[in-house]
């Protein structure tokens, strides 16, 4: 067995393999039979062979937009009403008791006035019963 020169001898580099006749010439044709058609061709073929079915329009389909509109309006009205009720409730809950404050202030005012005018309880009774 001859020694092989792995560095210099070009003859050593001859490949020991061979291929069947016309293998490379026929390979591309054989290969392309395994490759699917492109998307554009597929869609064209589909358009030719398949009937396009139009959707059936029912009564419900026709009135659906109006139903959606009515539901929207009802929803808005309901929301506004709820908002108004809440606002009123909040206003009543936090309303200032004006009468109570005025009564207390008025009583204090009378006491201060009596002290200023040096009026005692006897004078007040006499005034109230018109026996002054």
């Amino acid at each position, binding site marked *: 067995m001859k020694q*092989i020169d*792995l560095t210099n001898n070009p003859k050593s*580099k001859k*490949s*020991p*393999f061979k*291929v069947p006749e016309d293998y490379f010439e026929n390979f591309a044709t054989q290969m392309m039979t395994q*490759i699917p058609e*492109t*998307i554009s061709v597929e869609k064209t073929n589909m358009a030719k062979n398949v009937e396009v079915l139009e959707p059936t329009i029912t009564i419900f389909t026709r009135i659906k937009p109006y139903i959606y509109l009515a539901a929207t309006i009802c929803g808005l009205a309901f929301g506004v009403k709820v908002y108004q009720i809440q606002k009123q409730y909040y206003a009543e809950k936090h309303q200032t008791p004006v009468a109570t404050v005025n009564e207390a202030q008025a009583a204090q005012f009378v006491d201060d006035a009596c002290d200023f005018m040096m009026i005692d309880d006897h004078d007040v009774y006499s005034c109230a019963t018109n026996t002054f």
Partner: protein
Amino acid sequence: MSYLDDSLITRQLHDPATRRRAFEELVKKYTAQLYWQIRHMVLSHDDTNDVLQNTFIKVWTNLDNFRGDSKLATWLYRIAVNESLTFIQKRKDTLTIDDTEAGPAAELESDPYFDGDETDLQLQKALQTLPEKQRIVFNMKYFQEMKYEDMSEILKTSVGSLKASYHFAVEKIENYFNAND
């Protein structure tokens, strides 16, 4: 036979209207190169034919993933190498205890598509004793006379590592010949 320029093929591959025709051009242009790359790894013509078809099918299904970051040839070689390694691994998994160390190389003697002499046969047996990556480097450098820079792009390994790998491969093969002389 004149082939289309790689950049033109790449542009046409990304256009659905011209994709199929461009792919056929690509197959015609690169069949021989990829065939020999695969053949030196898997040895048998029938196995090479299968791996080569798988390679081109993988190329077709991944055309949209090729953005031109690397050369078209580099990308094709990379897929071919990976498919070859996958095939070799599957074949290795099916080997039985009775199979010889040389594996597929032992079947070359009876292979009608093996045209080598005794030295060539021993070389192929010696190559089968190398790790796969080292074998790939040796085949690319020795049989296909590829430049280290091109190999570096395909295998994503530095030129220095490739040179070292080839050097060790040559050493092991020479030792094999000396041991079996």
